[in-house]
């Protein structure tokens, strides 16, 4: 029999995995182009609404909607990247913040217009409901599924970055953009593809998040803070860093809510400020 602290730890880890899927795209795009994309969670929200619509209107099974959520978010991000983002790669932080926060505002209003401001209900399939018994702990099946998905995503990402030609180009562009350009790597194209991949993962994360945290038009902003915290704590451009930071933030958020409910979100913000002051480039950042 394991003491209940392991249950809290497991819930925290599962939550952290969810946050990792949501934030890993932003980590890579920020590290690659230094582009401050505050609309990242708008893509996640899009993924969530795609899943909800397909399931409730068209009766698709939950698992089948996940790839669609991924591609819908990736497609939307490509369109925005081509039309709006690309003009601002060399612009100041302020302009990037303003443009993307504007897009996030628009996404909130559009979601409220089409879906209303209420939480969207979804019915997860039977085999993901309930909990599995493990050494006396009741582990939620959906959370186990989340951990599984996040691990698969991590392995795919790390393997893709380490062993493929495209991955090598991404790494080269993150490490030294000028040199990469000099070697003939099309950094802009690399960025566009990475951006689409990252936004697609955010869309997947948004779809996965519905069962844990629900989905309403404020998703764009409610999770933005968490995602930004993970990115800045983990370090820009570092996948391992985001993974570690997501686990840290997930566990400290759940444990904080469980053991010190009176502190609220205070703990998370404090962790971020202290880590950033101690290591401005994040825990695993290079710069």
């Amino acid at each position: 029999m394991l003491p209940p602290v392991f249950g809290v730890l497991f819930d925290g880890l599962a939550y952290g995995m969810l946050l990792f899927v949501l934030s890993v795209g932003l980590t890579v795009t920020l590290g690659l182009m230094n582009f401050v994309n505050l609309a990242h969670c708008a893509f996640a929200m899009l993924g969530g609404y795609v899943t909800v619509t397909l399931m409730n209107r068209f009766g698709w099974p939950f698992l089948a909607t996940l790839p669609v959520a991924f591609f819908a978010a990736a497609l939307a991000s490509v369109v925005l990247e081509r039309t709006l983002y690309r003009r601002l790669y060399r612009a100041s932080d302020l302009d990037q913040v303003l443009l993307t926060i504007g897009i996030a505002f628009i996404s909130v209003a559009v979601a409220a217009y089409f879906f209303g401001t209420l939480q969207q209900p979804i019915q997860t399939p039977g085999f993901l409901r309930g909990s599995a018994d493990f050494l006396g702990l009741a582990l939620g099946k959906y959370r186990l599924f989340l951990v599984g998905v996040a691990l698969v995503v991590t392995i795919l990402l790390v393997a893709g970055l380490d062993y493929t030609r495209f991955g090598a180009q991404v790494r080269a562009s993150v490490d030294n953009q000028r040199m990469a350009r000099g070697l003939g790597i099309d950094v802009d194209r690399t960025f566009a593809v990475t951006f689409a991949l990252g936004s697609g993962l955010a869309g997947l994360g948004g779809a996965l998040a519905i069962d844990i945290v629900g989905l309403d038009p404020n998703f764009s902003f409610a999770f933005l803070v968490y995602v930004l915290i993970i990115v800045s704590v983990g370090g820009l451009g570092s996948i391992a860093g985001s993974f570690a930071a997501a686990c840290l933030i997930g566990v400290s958020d759940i444990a904080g809510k469980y053991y010190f409910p009176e502190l609220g979100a205070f703990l998370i913000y404090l962790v971020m400020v202290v880590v950033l002051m101690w290591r401005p480039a994040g825990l695993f950042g290079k710069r």
Partner: protein
Amino acid sequence: MSTSPLATNPQAYLQSASRWRPVEIVFWLATLLPFYLLPDYLSLASQIAITALFALSLDLILGYGGIVSLGHAAFFGIGAYSAAIFSKFVMGEPLVGLAAAAAVTGIAGFASSFIVARFRHFTLIMLTLGLGLLAQEAANRAHWLTGGSDGFQGADIWPVLGLFHFDLYGYTAYGYSLAALFVLFLAARRMISSPFGLALRGIRENWVRMPAIGAPSRAHIQKAYTIAAIMAGIAGALLTQTTQTAALESISFQRSADVVVMLVLGGAGRLYGGLVGAVIFMIARDQFSGIAPQYWYFWIGVLLVSVVTFLPNGILGGLSAIAARWRRK
């Protein structure tokens, strides 16, 4: 242009930059019009004056110093709560309350300026966001002091100078806020057209090079940040005193985001940018208050995207570009 006396004589340059232009005098005279033309809207006018002061304070650090802050409402809120608490436990004299709020926010601003002046770019944005959220969460949790999400109870504000009661129509509120705005605007104007203001703009353009010509970047940013915090705190205190209450909304992220929007809309790095932006933003919000708030933010979003894409220097920047083209013809 390079041979004009302005370029060679720094004193003449500074003096010409600080000369009052007719447009400015017209602008400030126009601020008196609501007393006569729109007496029903004086409460709104007072809110606008307060918001304009808040936007002006952000302009000092964002427009001139280049410090992008997503947590500036922290100082507005600290000022608002300080004024409320001061009036409840010490005395309700408004001017003394303003001074007390200014002192508290000055200390808070100076303390956080050590953090802000050390970082740049993304880390800086995240730190200001984090500090702002910490302040918001602290005000929410300190229910015994601030009233939390129920709002502050028991603020007691005396008449201004013992003569002018805060009336229902907002005569005193607008006069008082406008006077405060004007006095602090004069101070900001003086500061911006001084060598210190020039140095700030230099730091915005090149953080590394300024120390080489004798302007310590970090110390200057710290000073500007503290001054901006004090001004934001006074704006918050004005809101408390004119509405006789303080709410969590005054310290929220929403307010931080709104003020950035206003400033950028009007034109950051221009003395009147925040003022014009606040007037347009507040009047538009009042006019569109019938529609649900989430749709109001749709238009804010569209506005932001189009300002960034088509009008990089805000409305005033666009206007002055048109004026410059006109003059050349």
